[in-house]
C-alpha cells in the first residue's frame, strides 16, 4: 500500500491523533508557562532558592520519559493512565527551559534600566509588568519555544500510557514493521515541531527590543502576534470541542474498557473480546498500554480486562521463581490473583506464547541446528539481540545463558523486541529471543530452536478480568467460556502474520476470524 493511499484510508484516525497530540502539547506547554514563569520570577527575587529549584528542574528533565511515565502511574490524583498523566509528565519536562529563561531574561536586564525604574518611583508590580516582563519577553518566549518543541517530541511517548497522540502510530509502526504507520506518525510530529518552532520564533522576534527600531515592522509584528494567539486559541478550543463531542457519545454502566499490551497479539486478543462484546450490544473502549501498565490499569479500574500470559503473571507480577508445569502455573496464578487483587483469570485460550529462540534458517541448515543446546559451541562467535523485557526478567537472559552455558562474542544488544526480528534477518545479530506466535517467523525465514533443557516457563494466554466487571456485564462469562481452548499456536501465528506482514487492520482480521469460527 502506498503511503498516500494509506493516508487517505486512515484520514480520520490520523486527524484524531493529530488533534490529541496538539491538545497534549498546547495544554501542557500553557500549564508549564503558567507555573514556570511565576516560579522564574520568584527565583529572581529569592536568590537562595535559585540554585535548588533550578537543580530540581534540571534533574527532572534528565529522567527518561518512559521511566517518568512509569513513576507517575501509581500516584493518585496526578497519575494513572491517560491524558492527565501525560500532561503532568509533559509539564515536568517543559518547566526547566521556561523557568531558566525567565530567570535569565529578567536578571539579564541592564542594571541601569532596573535602577532607573526603582529610582523613578515605580512600584515592584509596575517594574515587573512594565519593565521586567516586556524586556525579558523574547528570552522567556525562547524558553517556551524550546519547551514546545520538547513537548511535541515527548508527546509521542505519551501513547504508552494511553494518552493517544501520534505516538500511537509510531509504536504500532515499530511493532508491525510498517513504514507507512511510522511515517504517518513521525512526519506530522516533525512538521508540528517545525511549525511550532518557527511560529514562536516569529513571535519572539516581534517581542525583541531590536525589532522596535523599525517602524515598518510594527504592522508585521502585530499581525504575527495576532496569528500566534489565534492559532493557540484555535488549537485549545478545537481540542476541547473534540473531547466534549467524544465524551458525550459515552454510554453508562454497560460500557467496558478492554486493555491490551502494545504488541499485535495482545491487540488482536483484546479485539476479539471487544468485537464479541459489541455484537452483544456492549459498548467498548479499547486502550493500548506499554510494559506492565495494563496490570496497574486493571488494578486501578481504568480498564476492565486485558489479555495476559500465565508465565508473565507468575514471574513478573507475582515474583515467583519460574517453574515448568503449565497446569501448576495456571492454578497458582488463578488462586493468587483472586486472593490478592480480586481479579479473575479466564480459561486458557489454547496457545502459548513462550520465548522462542530464533536463528536464521540458513544458519540452522548449515550448522544442522535443531535445539538450543547445539548452539553452545558456536555462541562465542555469535552476537545476540534481546528485547528489554527478556534482558531483565527472572526467566530471561541471565538464567537462560546459564542453563545453556552460552557465552556470546559480546554483551547482547538490548533493543526493542519488534526490531530484533529485523536485526536477525538482516544479519546484524545471530540469535534472538522472539515470541513463539510471532507472525513474521516464517516470513523472515527464521527458525525456532527447541528448548531441550526446558528452561522457559509456560506462557498460556488468558484474559485477566476485574471481578466487578464480570458482575456488571454478565455476557463476559459466556464469551470467556466460548473462547476457552479456541486458538491454536498456528492460528495465532496466522492472525499475527495477517496484521504484521499482511498489513491489515486488526479489527478486520478479527472480524474475519470470528466469522470463520462462528463466534
Amino acid at each position, binding site marked *: 500500500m502506498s503511503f498516500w493511499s494509506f493516508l487517505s484510508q486512515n484520514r480520520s484516525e490520523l486527524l484524531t491523533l493529530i488533534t490529541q497530540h496538539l491538545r497534549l502539547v498546547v495544554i501542557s506547554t500553557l500549564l508549564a508557562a503558567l507555573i514556570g514563569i511565576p516560579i522564574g520570577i520568584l527565583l529572581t527575587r529569592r536568590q537562595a532558592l535559585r540554585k535548588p529549584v533550578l537543580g530540581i528542574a534540571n534533574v527532572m528533565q534528565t529522567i527518561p520519559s518512559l521511566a517518568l511515565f512509569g513513576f507517575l502511574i501509581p500516584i493518585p490524583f496526578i497519575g494513572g493512565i491517560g491524558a492527565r498523566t501525560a500532561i503532568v509528565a509533559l509539564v515536568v519536562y517543559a518547566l526547566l527551559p521556561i523557568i531558566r529563561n525567565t530567570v535569565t531574561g529578567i536578571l539579564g536586564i*541592564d542594571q*541601569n*534600566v532596573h*535602577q*532607573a*525604574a*526603582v*529610582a*523613578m*518611583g*515605580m*512600584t515592584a508590580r*509596575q517594574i515587573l509588568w512594565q*519593565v521586567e516582563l*516586556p*524586556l525579558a519577553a523574547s528570552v522567556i518566549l525562547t524558553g517556551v519555544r524550546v519547551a514546545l518543541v520538547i513537548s511535541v517530541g515527548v508527546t509521542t511517548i505519551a501513547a504508552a500510557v494511553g494518552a493517544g497522540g501520534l505516538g500511537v502510530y509510531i509504536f504500532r509502526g515499530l511493532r508491525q514493521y510498517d513504514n507507512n504507520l511510522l511515517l504517518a506518525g513521525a512526519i506530522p510530529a516533525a512538521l508540528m515541531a517545525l511549525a511550532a518552532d518557527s511560529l514562536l520564533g516569529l513571535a519572539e522576534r516581534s517581542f525583541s*527590543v*531590536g525589532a*522596535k*527600531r523599525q*517602524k515598518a515592522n510594527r504592522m508585521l509584528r502585530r499581525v504575527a502576534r495576532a496569528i500566534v494567539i489565534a492559532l493557540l486559541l484555535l488549537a485549545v478550543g478545537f481540542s476541547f470541542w473534540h473531547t466534549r463531542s467524544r465524551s458525550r457519545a459515552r454510554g453508562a454502566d454497560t460500557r467496558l474498557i478492554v486493555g491490551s499490551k502494545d504488541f499485535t497479539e495482545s491487540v488482536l486478543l483484546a479485539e476479539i473480546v471487544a468485537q464479541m462484546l459489541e455484537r452483544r450490544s456492549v459498548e467498548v473502549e479499547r486502550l493500548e498500554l506499554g510494559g506492565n501498565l495494563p496490570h496497574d490499569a486493571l488494578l486501578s479500574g481504568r480498564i476492565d480486562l486485558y489479555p495476559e500470559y500465565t508465565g508473565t503473571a507468575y514471574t513478573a507480577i507475582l515474583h515467583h521463581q519460574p517453574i515448568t508445569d503449565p497446569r501448576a502455573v495456571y492454578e497458582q496464578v488463578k488462586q493468587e490473583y483472586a486472593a490478592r487483587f480480586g481479579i479473575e483469570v479466564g480459561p486458557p485460550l489454547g496457545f502459548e506464547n513462550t520465548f522462542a529462540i530464533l536463528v536464521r534458517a540458513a544458519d540452522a541448515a548449515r550448522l544442522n541446528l535443531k535445539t538450543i543446546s547445539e548452539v553452545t559451541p558456536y555462541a562465542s562467535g555469535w552476537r545476540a539481540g534481546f528485547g528489554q523485557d527478556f534482558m531483565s526478567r527472572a526467566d530471561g537472559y541471565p538464567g537462560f545463558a546459564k542453563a545453556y552455558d552460552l557465552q556470546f562474542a559480546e554483551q547482547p544488544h538490548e533493543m526493542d523486541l519488534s526490531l530484533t526480528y529485523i536485526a536477525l534477518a538482516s544479519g546484524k545479530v545471530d540469535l534472538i529471543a522472539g515470541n513463539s506466535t510471532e507472525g513474521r517467523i516464517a516470513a523472515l525465514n527464521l527458525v525456532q530452536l527447541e528448548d531441550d533443557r526446558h528452561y522457559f516457563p509456560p506462557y498460556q494466554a488468558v484474559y485477566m478480568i476485574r471481578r466487578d466487571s464480570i458482575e456488571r456485564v454478565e455476557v463476559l462469562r459466556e464469551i470467556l467460556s466460548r473462547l476457552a481452548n479456541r486458538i491454536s499456536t498456528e492460528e495465532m501465528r496466522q492472525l499475527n502474520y495477517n496484521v504484521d506482514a499482511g498489513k491489515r487492520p486488526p479489527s478486520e482480521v478479527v472480524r474475519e476470524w470470528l466469522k470463520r469460527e462462528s463466534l
Partner: protein
Amino acid sequence: MAVATAQMSEPNSEVLVDFNNVTYSFDATGSPVISNLNLSVARGETLVLLGESGCGKTTTLKLTNRLLLPDSGEVLVEGRATTLWDPIRLRRRTGYVIQEGGLFPHFTVERNIGLVPKLDHWEPARIRARVHELLALVGLEPLTFAQRYPAELSGGQRQRVGVARALAAEPPLLLLDEPFGALDPLTRASLQQEFALLTKRLNKTSIFVTHDLHEALMLGSRIGLMKAGRLLLLETPADFLNSTNEYARAYLDTLQLHESGTNSPERRL
C-alpha cells in the same frame, strides 16, 4: 578640618536635604561606606559631590531618595526623615539621572519622558504637552524625536532625554549620578553648559555627583569633596580653588597639569 555646615535641629524652609550624622555600610561587618556625614543642600543650589570611585558619593545620592536607608543618623528631605517617607512618593518627587540615561529600551522617547507623569495619572494630553515642552527645553526637536526608541539616539541625545525624564513631573529635587561621564569630550562640554543654564533658569535644586573637577567647578554652587566615606571639604568653587586642603590641592594640581599639557575644550574654564 571643620565641616562647613551647621547642624539643623528645626525644619528650615531654605534647606531641602539635610544629612545628620549619617553612617552607612553595605554589610554589618565591613567598614562603612559613609561615616558621620553632615551636609545640607539649600533650595536652588547645585551641590556637586566630587571624589574618586568608591568614595561614597553615589551612596549619598541613594540615601537621599531612599534607595538606601542609613544605619545611623538620619536624612531629612523637605524636613522629614527618609525613613518616614513613602519611598514611592519620595522617588516620584525626586528626579534621577544616571550615566547612559538608564532609559527603557522598549519605550519611545515620549513614553520614557512621560513615565512619572503617567505613574502619577496625569491626563494623556497634558503628558504629551509636557513631553514636547521638555524635549524643546533639552534641545531636541519634539516632532523628530518623540517617537524614536533609545537605540535610535546618540549618546548625547540619550542623556538629554534622561534629563528631560528626570524633570518631567517637576520634582523639587534632582539627583544626577555622573550623567555626562560616558560622553565624548565635545558633547560633554556642550551638555554641561546647557545644564548650567537650565538649572539656573529653572531654579532647580540638584545634587550632582562627578569625579571630574572641571565639571564640579563649572556646575556647582558648592563643591563637596569626598574621600573614603567622609566629607573633607564643602566650599564654593572660588574658595575651593584657593583651598589649602592637601587632597583638594592634589585635585587642583591635576587641573593645572591638564591645562598646560593639552588643548582640550575645558580650557574655556
